[in-house]
């Protein structure tokens, strides 16, 4: 719990995202209130989570996204993707490694964090990075998913 707050505080100091801060404050208050009112006394934990927090924009990742995040967790941070990207003349605004690490974080954090702006402008999608990835991470899909508009 405390770690979660620290994470948000860090995210806030880095991105200045008021939305992240507001969500954190709101869910922090809502959690206590809902516990007090006993609204999540029974039922399956995932159901309770969704019921209680869907209104705050929290949701479980879909199966496809979960698979993507899991595969991104295999990242060795070896940097071959960045090297191949540079060699083949790609000019993405984000290092492929950063995108993969961001996606791997999703598997743990569940909540989609406010990401820095450059991810919104995707790369040329040449997939050169994927050809050298020792962990076979679908880097292109990861980038696309990170760049997709958030509902």
């Amino acid at each position: 719990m405390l770690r979660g707050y620290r994470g948000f505080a860090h995210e806030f100091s880095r991105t200045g995202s008021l939305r992240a801060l507001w969500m954190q404050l709101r869910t922090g208050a809502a959690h206590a209130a809902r516990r007090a009112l006993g609204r999540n006394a029974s039922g399956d934990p995932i159901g309770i989570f969704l019921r209680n927090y869907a209104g705050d924009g929290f949701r479980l990742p879909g199966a496809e996204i979960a698979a993507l995040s899991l595969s991104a967790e295999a990242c060795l941070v070896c940097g071959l993707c960045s090297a191949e990207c540079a060699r083949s003349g790609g000019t993405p605004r984000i290092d492929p490694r950063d995108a993969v690490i961001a996606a791997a974080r999703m598997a743990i954090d569940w909540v989609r964090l406010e990401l820095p702006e450059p991810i919104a402008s995707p790369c040329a999608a040449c997939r050169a990075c994927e050809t050298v990835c020792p962990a076979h991470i679908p880097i292109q899909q990861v980038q696309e998913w990170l760049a997709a508009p958030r509902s």
Partner: protein
Amino acid sequence: MKAVVVGGGLAGSSAALELASRGAEVTLVCAAPGATALSWGTLDVAAASPLRRGGLPLRDPASGHPLAPIVRLHAVAAANPAHPYATLFRERGPEEEVKEAVAALDAWLAPSGLRVHGSLAQTRWLADVHGALRAADLAFSGAGEGDLEGAEEIALVDVPGLPGFEVRSALRTLAAEMAAVGLASRALSIVRLALPEALRDDAAQPARFARNLDADAARGALQDAVAALGAEGRLLLVPPVLGLDPAAGTRAWFEATAGCRAAELVGAPALSLAGFRLDRALGAALSRAGVERIAGRVERVEIEGVRVRGVQLAEPGPPSRPADTAMLPCDALVLATGRFVGGGIVERGGQLVEPLLGLPLHDLAGRRVDSLAANQLVRGDYEGEQPLFGTGVRTDMRLRPLGPDGLPRFANCFAAGDLLGSFDPARDRTGLGVALLSGRRAGIEAAAC
């Protein structure tokens, strides 16, 4: 004669190039770059690490004189009879075997602009990005020119904004380590590369920065800044980002512009582009030799009695690397699938497995370990021997993997590189030496069958 090599690191590439030079029709199946592409700029057949425990002695315990790499090489082979070196050097001594292998590797890589520097007669003192000293023997272009021995003055080049390189920390470590081995008389300093505005942002991405240095535009912009670093008798040690393409000669340009010796620091994965350059140069050598390369995974090996008949490829990886799903028939098979990074040994259902042929695995001490989990082979002693890190297959004299009965399992299947067990490259400091020597030998043996 048709041969299939599985694995595209230094071991697999060496095997394929040897086979091709002996007239075989070679197909190399490679899923992705492995540990070779993550290597750090040295070849190292018998290096030593002067100030850390484990590995080989640096000096003769009796006289205190530094040992030449060739002496350490003999010591490695003698200390552990199951070591791949012991097998490889049984017929001919290490001198000839290594000399021949290094000459062959140099010839393969030279057209791509990558050379092998050094010899087995003399230890080369190289510094890495953390400032640690390495008693290296053979090293590739880049780090290979950075022997501290001949320099009157050593300057670490700080590249502002480059991640993963803490120049002050490296300087302190290097000063302490040089003093400990008696190289202390050389002056040490930090010089700062003044990056022009246009290159400042790219320094955050080492690969991008390195690519820029390969091109004339960035070289022009950096001309004055690099020239300002030079001084008479100085050795400039630069982070390992001098170029992505070895043929562009970026280190040589840096040296000529600065007007004094310049070399790269030995790298660490993620910052160093040395492994990437080696991987690319090996790829180019394979293309020149006419080796057909297929990107994909081997799913199954076709077996008939004691012979391997061919390999069946699995689904292709990413769509950008289409793989033929057909069966590849072969007269000889070389397995150079690596160890844990390359996927030559995996843990499945809590047991260590060699996934292609189910070959028995042995740890450093020779125990059968293929019914054990990886964490049962790790000890809580940080600097002690870890049985897991020496795990691999055992072979006969001709590098044919042994079956459960201790006899070669197949007549025409050979193993090379890290898949071979009974050695731990991190402790032996054998670097890429086992990959090169065993890869060549496996290629030669496969061509003869």
